[in-house]
């Protein structure tokens, strides 16, 4: 094992806590609300001109998604701070190119002081028997979106995998770096 490899990315099934959402949880069948084109929304108004409804006619996009909110913020016992849950869609690397860059991307989760460049927008997810991405996938951090806290139980029912604490640290570190710009 080289230094860029996470010792294990996902918890074993018997170790997964299906009663809670945690940072790094992988959910299946999530509607990717971030894919909505705001310009295609039709707003309905009443006689007073108040906006009372909206409609959007387009094919909904469903995908796997990963929980980006940190675990303590979405802890159900933490009723004060739990206001929304941030998700990021997962994209199949079989649809990505070029191949040589993909191989670099797969090694880019580990970042330290000697790292000159990375693929900060993407967090690589290894293949797993419960995932349909046989060649691996990425969490697209640039396409994150949030849903309201009253969606918690719905999201929880879609949880299929939980990342290891080590992998979660890599994920949160890369996410922070992606949003941080010092230039």
């Amino acid at each position, binding site marked *: 094992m080289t230094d860029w490899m996470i010792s294990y990315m996902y918890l074993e099934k018997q170790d997964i806590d299906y009663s809670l959402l945690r940072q790094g949880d992988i959910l299946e069948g999530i509607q990717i609300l971030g894919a909505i084109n705001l310009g295609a929304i039709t707003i309905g108004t009443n006689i007073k001109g108040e906006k009372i409804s909206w409609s959007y006619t387009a094919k909904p996009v469903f995908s796997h998604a990963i929980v980006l909110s940190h675990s303590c913020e979405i802890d159900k016992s933490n009723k004060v701070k739990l206001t929304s849950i941030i998700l990021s869609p997962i994209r199949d690397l079989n649809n990505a190119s*070029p191949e040589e*860059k993909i191989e670099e991307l797969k090694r880019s989760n580990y970042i330290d002081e000697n790292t*000159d460049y990375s693929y900060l927008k993407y967090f690589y997810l290894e293949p797993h028997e419960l995932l349909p991405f046989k060649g691996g996938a990425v969490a697209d951090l640039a396409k994150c979106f949030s849903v*309201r806290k009253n969606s918690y139980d719905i999201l929880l029912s879609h949880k299929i995998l939980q990342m290891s604490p080590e992998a979660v640290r890599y994920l949160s570190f890369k996410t922070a*770096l992606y949003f941080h710009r*010092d230039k």
Partner: protein
Amino acid sequence: MTLLRSDIDVPKVVPLFETDNPISFFGLNNVVNAILNNIRFEQLLKEYMEAVIYSEYLKLLSGSVIKVDDPFDSIYIADLSPDKINTETIKRIVSIGKKIEDHSEQILFNDGLDD
């Protein structure tokens, strides 16, 4: 104008319309006064209002009343406590962020989502 009720037994009626209002010309004030001075009408109105209040209360208890759905619930700053954030981690993020280059744009996807 306000309709004042200072004595339940002897209702008083404040004129609802000015005398130059065409409606008043037809004696609407008289009609209103006659209705409000009618003990039977007062009893009917009381029963109706009580029925409405009880009905709404039962709906509230049964959960069938749609509450105001506020997508951005109140956050009480005073109730928040700060997270413990490792300052070394922040320094590390800033330090690495100063020199690292992002090559994400070199990856192309063909999955229908815009890049």
